[in-house]
């Protein structure tokens, strides 16, 4: 039976990298959005520019399930190289759309799917003589065909094309022509619509469609970052590039045309973080964006920033490790690397945004935290959030908000005779005062070093002052618990014995899995962790349950390790739920893993008790 579904299916486009398909596929996704139906698209791309396979997956989801679902209902198979795998991945009853210009033997198809052939190449060759045009318009032609097959509102697509080429008006008419070429062919020659349909709804609201990296970069602009130093690495490069674009738009002095920012493409990540530390030491808000291999290189400097107490922001857009690992796939596998970065006893603050809106909020916040706590702050993004467009609540900024520049002693305070000890814990929160270089002619200067020193920043190798300082750093970390974003808790209707802890990009899949579990009669309490060190609420949550599942996207259960280690929890009660194959975690996986586990514990679901 062919799948019948309105506003709830997955379309996957299989393309060749560099064939210009990306913008056509995005046009398709946006058109669904314009019909008021939420979508969640994902790029699956190789670490290569041209010639290798790429996939673009669009989950059409009126129910607002923005996590990856798994499985494909409609495959748009445009890459002969991956044909067999693509055909095999279609759900039973699903649909295959392909270019039928060259005949294919029946053995290459499946009997349990609906096959829709359209001679795309032939149509293009007939219509266009320029090979580049043939390639580019082929993509728009299949979007036109899909609009007919899925019963979409073609006006919305036309409007989007108009907006896209607002500044290159000459391109509008040919694109619309190609769109209709495909649509008309489909309407005349194919059975339209198929069982999958997009029907106008009202479920998008005022949400925006944005990549996490762009949102995070804008958060850095709003958060007052003036220095950005970076070294290109997937999936973080587009963050620094977005910062450049946002700054060019928002940070150029209107009169002098001079820049209120400095962006340096460093020679490597060691230099990038060194520049951030130099700028932070000198009172500017500075950040770097990188991924796991970059953090590995930064280790020595991160220890310096921790020990010498220099505000710095490191945005880690995580990818599959270890080593070069899976450079274009997503993971949450840098938690331990960042939490305890560098040699000696260190602990670092981390923030875990769940989507672009939080990527914006937390990045802006990270600069306040870095200066308040005078330490590195890690913003833990990942490829899934960073490099995919995600439907997200609009970005918001309170104009009354002021930057928290932390404890900085001014020239006036020094002049008035206020005691300045760079590492003196004056407020019993572990946070000392600092001064910017050049503040006062005779007071407040000090020597910054990674070597041990006393409370007045004087070099010492004595054990006492060293221990005193290390203990103060712990106290400061304690203070951080109250400053990082609090966890978000959602309780089941009735108090239960089990809870789930999750974080970051797992959010949408977790939400959906939660619904699936409830439908099975399993109701669990949820806690989304948003910061490290863990807020007191986290320990409280763990203590209130017999067992807690920790859902994450790495092999070694890294957040679980931190929970057990930092909160002294009984490991037997903290149960890992792990997906780490590089694809974004799915609700199906989470629900099955937790369901199976509860079965094995012979937990009788609620509905079974009732019936």
């Amino acid at each position, binding site marked *: 039976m062919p799948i019948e579904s309105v506003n709830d299916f997955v379309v996957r486009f299989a393309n060749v990298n560099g064939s210009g398909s990306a913008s056509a596929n995005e046009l398709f996704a946006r058109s669904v959005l314009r019909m008021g139906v939420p979508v969640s698209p994902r790029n699956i791309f190789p670490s290569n520019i041209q010639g290798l396979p790429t996939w673009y997956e669009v989950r059409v989801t009126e129910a607002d399930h923005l996590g990856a679902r798994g499985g494909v209902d409609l495959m748009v198979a445009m890459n002969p190289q991956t044909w067999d795998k693509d055909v095999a991945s279609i759900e039973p009853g699903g649909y295959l759309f392909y270019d039928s210009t060259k005949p294919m033997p029946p053995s290459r198809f499946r009997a349990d799917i609906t096959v829709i052939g359209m001679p795309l190449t032939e149509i293009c060759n007939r219509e266009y003589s320029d090979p580049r045009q043939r390639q580019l318009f082929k993509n728009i032609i299949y979007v036109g065909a899909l609009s007919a097959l899925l019963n979409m509102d073609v006006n919305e697509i036309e409007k989007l094309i108009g907006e896209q080429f607002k500044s290159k008006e000459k391109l509008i008419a040919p694109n619309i022509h190609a769109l209709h070429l495909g649509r008309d062919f489909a309407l005349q020659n194919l059975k339209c619509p198929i069982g999958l349909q997009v029907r106008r709804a009202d479920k998008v609201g005022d949400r925006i469609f944005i990549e996490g990296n762009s949102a995070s970069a804008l958060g850095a602009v709003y958060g007052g970052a003036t220095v950005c130093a970076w070294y290109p690495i997937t999936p973080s490069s587009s963050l620094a590039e977005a910062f450049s674009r946002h700054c060019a738009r928002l940070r150029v002095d209107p009169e002098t045309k001079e820049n209120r920012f400095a962006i340096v493409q460093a020679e490597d990540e060691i230099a990038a973080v060194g520049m951030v530390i130099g700028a932070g030491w000198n009172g*500017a808000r500075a950040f770097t964006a990188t991924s796991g291999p970059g953090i590995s290189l930064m280790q020595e400097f991160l220890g310096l920033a921790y020990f010498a107490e220099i505000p710095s922001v490191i945005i880690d857009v995580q990818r599959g490790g270890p080593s070069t690992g899976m450079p274009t796939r997503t993971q949450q596998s840098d938690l331990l690397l960042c939490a305890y970065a560098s040699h000696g006893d260190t602990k670092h603050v981390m923030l875990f945004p769940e989507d672009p809106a939080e990527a914006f909020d937390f990045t802006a916040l990270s600069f306040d935290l870095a200066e308040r706590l005078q330490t590195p702050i890690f913003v833990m993004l990942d490829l899934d959030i960073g490099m995919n467009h995600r439907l997200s609540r609009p970005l918001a900024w309170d104009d009354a908000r002021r930057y928290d520049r932390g404890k900085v002693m001014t020239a006036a305070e020094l002049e008035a005779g206020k005691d300045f000890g760079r590492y003196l814990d004056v407020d019993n929160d572990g946070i000392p005062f600092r001064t910017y270089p050049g503040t006062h002619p005779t007071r407040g200067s000090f020597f910054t070093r990674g070597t041990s020193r006393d409370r007045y920043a004087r070099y010492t190798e004595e054990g006492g002052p060293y221990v005193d300082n290390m203990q103060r750093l712990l106290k400061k970390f304690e203070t951080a618990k109250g400053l990082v974003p609090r966890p978000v808790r959602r309780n089941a209707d009735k108090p239960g014995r089990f809870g789930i802890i999750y974080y970051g990009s797992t959010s949408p899949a977790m939400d959906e899995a939660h619904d699936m579990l409830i439908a099975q009669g399993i109701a669990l309490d949820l806690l989304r962790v948003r910061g490290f060190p863990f807020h007191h609420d986290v320990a409280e949550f763990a203590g209130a349950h017999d067992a807690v599942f920790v859902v994450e996207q790495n092999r070694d259960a890294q957040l679980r390790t931190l929970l057990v280690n930092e909160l002294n929890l009984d490991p037997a009660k903290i149960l890992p739920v792990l997906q780490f194959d590089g694809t974004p975690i799915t609700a199906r996986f989470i629900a099955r893993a937790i369901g199976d586990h509860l079965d094995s514990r012979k937990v009788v679901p609620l509905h079974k008790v009732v019936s």
Partner: protein
Amino acid sequence: MTYIVKPRFHHPALPKNALGYTHRDYEGSVSTLCAGCGHDSISAAIIQACFELNIEPHRVAKLSGIGCSSKTPTYFLGQSHGFNSVHGRMPSVMTGANLANRELIYLGVSGDGDTASIGLGQFAHLIRRGVNMTYIVENNGVYGLTKGQFSATADRGSKSKRGAINADSSIDLVAMALQLGATFVGRSFSGDKKQLVPLIMAAIEHKGAAFLDVISPCVAFNNHPGSTKSFDHVREHNEAVNRLDFISGRSPIAVDYEPGAVEIVEQHDGSKIALRKLDGDYDVHDRRGATNFLLERAAAGEIVTGLLYVEPDGEELHDNLKTVKKPLNTLGERELCPGSGALDKFNASLR
């Protein structure tokens, strides 16, 4: 060993500079280096240069890496902020600091290990970016702090204190700085205060990346026969291309060298360097010529010292980045935060 504060005793008769500061005001805490270490002489020259330039000490930011040489910023300019960063990576910290506040005077002090071995990459990029600062390498050809291993500037064939012969080619940081586009390049010797002080003064006043390689014998590990960085060796093989005098833009010019042998180089801020040429053919504005000359003299076993190259109106990193004149670290919400209106517009463009 911990920290020794110098007694703050001001003799009323101590000479004062135009700002009313005495020499003492430019000193730091007492050096803990070996007695006779060349690095201490360089610290003294830095103190002298800053005193004579009438620099307000707190307007200097002094940065270093790790090594005996990198410890020296503690021993001069006690009223300046200092930053002893990590081994070989001071250049990046320097770059970031400079980006944050373009108004301070930046002074980087490093060793030959710190710069030519572990830090060669960062050094190269610092210079090629044209960061406005003075970078001094206190070059002893060894790792002093880790007890005498060869560094990358040790000459091929030179002998370590333990008798080992260095078989590797040496890196000439002056040649590198020239090739990488430094706009001020000089070399001197820690034992030659007369040459060194004006060179440091001119380097500090120079706008752009100023590099000084200062040969600085390590009395503990590199001052024996067979070492090419020993006091004796350097004295015997020193080939100075010029003697210079430095005249700050702020002080009246009084040069009394014989005309013909003297060239006045005016820097961007009006300060002037008076060069008394020892070799009539040497042209301080010829980057290629300087490189050739260095190679030629090195082949003859000579160490060329003096001001080797200067481009008085060089560009620096802030020019290239077109940053605002106001230091970035003084900008606040008003200048940095575009506000909710701009954000609403941005949101609207994403629907």
